[in-house]
């Protein structure tokens, strides 16, 4: 079962050029087709943007340590909606709170205040255990460096999340194997992470993040350790595969070239959303210092 089939691409979907001249696509609205997703998990997931499958943050506040002595909060009241199937780049200078925002959205950190709504539930109020299950079943993660387990061949690294969730080994391996060709990884299944290039390892990490067909993929500086060409290749695969599995994508990056691959961009400064743009074209256009450019939501 392949859920990455070019022939099933939505009509009018942007053609994404392949390497070596990778260029970000013209941002499209949320994709119209979710090929291969099982009906059960898709119920209530409608390309039209069913609010049930949006990831919604309301009034997020995050303070580290005791608020009195800790200075300004890491997050100072963030409102944000990531629509189903949409990709969003979170940009901002170091220490702006963008990684904290990602961690709170992903249920890694519990916010001091506010709500994170996912499929009708407030992640911020879930127990540790529930959030662990949520991260395993509904979310996928891509880190700056693959964080692949060095002892496992690539294919087992990809199959592992499914097996941890209780899927049988044969099914997990089959589903993992299906992701290798679309990511350009054919023939590398048995390689150890130490035998892969940085870009290859990152594509294996993308496969691992998507293998459980998450609703949202969180990527923290996914190309931070890569050169521009490899970085474009990785973003191409990440956005393409997320689109075709119907997953929303949240990418924390400081690289405008990376942000251009996403449908939307938000800029975070001092724990607040400083600017928001619907199209990646606006990456350069939006000047966070210009109050007129700030879109309040």
């Amino acid at each position: 079962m392949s859920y990455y089939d070019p022939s099933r691409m939505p009509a009018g979907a942007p053609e994404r050029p392949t390497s070596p001249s990778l260029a970000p696509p013209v941002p499209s609205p949320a994709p119209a087709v979710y090929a291969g997703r099982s009906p059960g998990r898709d119920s209530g997931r409608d390309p039209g943007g069913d609010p049930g499958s949006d990831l919604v943050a309301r009034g997020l506040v995050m303070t580290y340590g005791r608020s009195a002595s800790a200075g300004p909060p890491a997050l100072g009241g963030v409102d944000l909606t990531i629509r189903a199937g949409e990709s969003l780049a979170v940009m901002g200078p170091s220490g702006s709170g963008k990684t904290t925002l990602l961690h709170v959205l992903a249920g890694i950190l519990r916010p001091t205040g506010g709500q994170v709504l996912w499929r009708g539930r407030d992640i911020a109020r879930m127990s540790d255990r529930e959030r662990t299950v949520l991260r395993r079943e509904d979310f996928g993660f891509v880190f700056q460096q693959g964080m692949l387990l060095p002892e496992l061949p690539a294919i087992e690294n990809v199959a592992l999340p499914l097996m941890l969730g209780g899927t049988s080994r044969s099914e997990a391996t089959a589903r993992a194997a299906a992701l290798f060709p679309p990511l350009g990884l054919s023939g590398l299944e048995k390689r150890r992470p130490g035998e892969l290039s940085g870009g290859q390892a990152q594509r294996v990490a993308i496969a691992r993040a998507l293998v459980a067909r998450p609703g949202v993929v969180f990527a923290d500086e996914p190309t931070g350790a890569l050169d521009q060409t490899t970085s474009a290749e990785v973003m191409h695969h990440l956005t393409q595969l997320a689109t075709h599995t119907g997953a929303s994508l949240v990418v924390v990056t400081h690289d405008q070239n990376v942000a251009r691959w996403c449908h939307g961009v938000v800029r975070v400064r001092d724990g607040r959303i400083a600017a928001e743009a619907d199209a990646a074209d606006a990456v350069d256009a939006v000047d966070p210092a210009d109050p007129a450019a700030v879109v309040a939501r």
Partner: protein
Amino acid sequence: MRAATGLWWRLRRAGAADNRVPGVLAVVSFAVATAALLVCVAGLRAFEARNPLPPGGLEGRLSDEAALGNLYVTLAWIATTCMVIPILTLGGVAARLAIARRDQRLAALRLAGATSGQVTLMTLAEAAAQAVLGALAGVVVYLAVLPLVARLSFQGRPFELRELVLPLGQTLAVVAAVVVVAIVSGASSLARVAISPLGVAARTSPKRLSVLRVVLALAAGAAWMLVITPMKEPQRMTIVLVLGAMILAVNAVGPWVVMVAGRVAARLAPTAASLLAARRIADDPKSTWRAVGALGLAVVIVGFTSLASVDDPTTPLERYLADDLGTGALVTLVIITIVGATSTGVVQAARVLDQREQYRALALAGTSERSLHRARALEVALPLAMTIALSAGFVLVLMLPFSSALDGALVVRFVVTSAVAGAVVLASVLASRSLVRTASRVA
């Protein structure tokens, strides 16, 4: 060079807590190895002092009493031979630990312009310093456990403390031996990693161990049959040498068997935890064997000595012999279990530290801490259970021809003892649970 030394020192002092943990683990390992070695040597000397050779040496006809005393010394040598190899292995584990976790610092030194020779020298100096510290602590531990050892009764009377206290010269010789082992195994493991300014070489597919190991082990087995068995009264040193060679041969073939078993297990593993465990075993069969090999040997020794009974003891001395064989084997098992548990605990802790980023990534991706603990426990439990079952089964099969003489209660005691030893080694994995918790803390 001065700049490099300065940087080395600053990095040392600035080391974060997780950089200090491996150092502490290495020192603890050296201490346990030294204490165990001192107890072995002290026991051996005490037996030799109790059973002096008669004036005519072994040439003349020995009285029954002298012959029996001579047997005690031979058995003490055999037990010591069995224990020395795992103890030295623990020393090697500690030295590797002292070196393995230095990756980033060593790379920083190379970036700062230190030559590869200088880096090697500094690293070995550090390993040696840890070995000295650990060995001295080991002397203290040895002195502290002496009163316990003295309560053991052999040949009808317990040891006296002064029988067991080693002269200063011999104590220092043991300390020196531990330091030398540390430097030698440190140098040999450093020779295998190229420390470039960008860090140490990444992990690739592990090399297969050669089948030559199996051939070697078979040759040693043949030597036992051909050299020792035909001898009517083999010299003690011959027995000890051939036994030592046998143990080395078993140590050569052990990792190969573990590797094959690990690969088969990895192919069949049905769950994530068992897959991870099997891959780790197949990836590093030598360290797995280090953890379980000695225990297998000890189980065999305990099996034979506790199940084989001396026929019709006539004199009181012969009656003591039957009991003493059991006691001696048990002491051997206890020491090997402690040493094996330390090895296992240290190797496991070092692995968590090495992979803490991957642990964190797994936890972020929703792996429960319980799954991480289960994979680690399986990684030790699988080879451990296999080794103990094989060793105990080996003894029981060899004893089958004499099954009419076997005491059912003794067999049960033997099986229970082996299981307890295995459980202790397994429990050593628990020591690094808090490291897993820290490494996998997501927020």
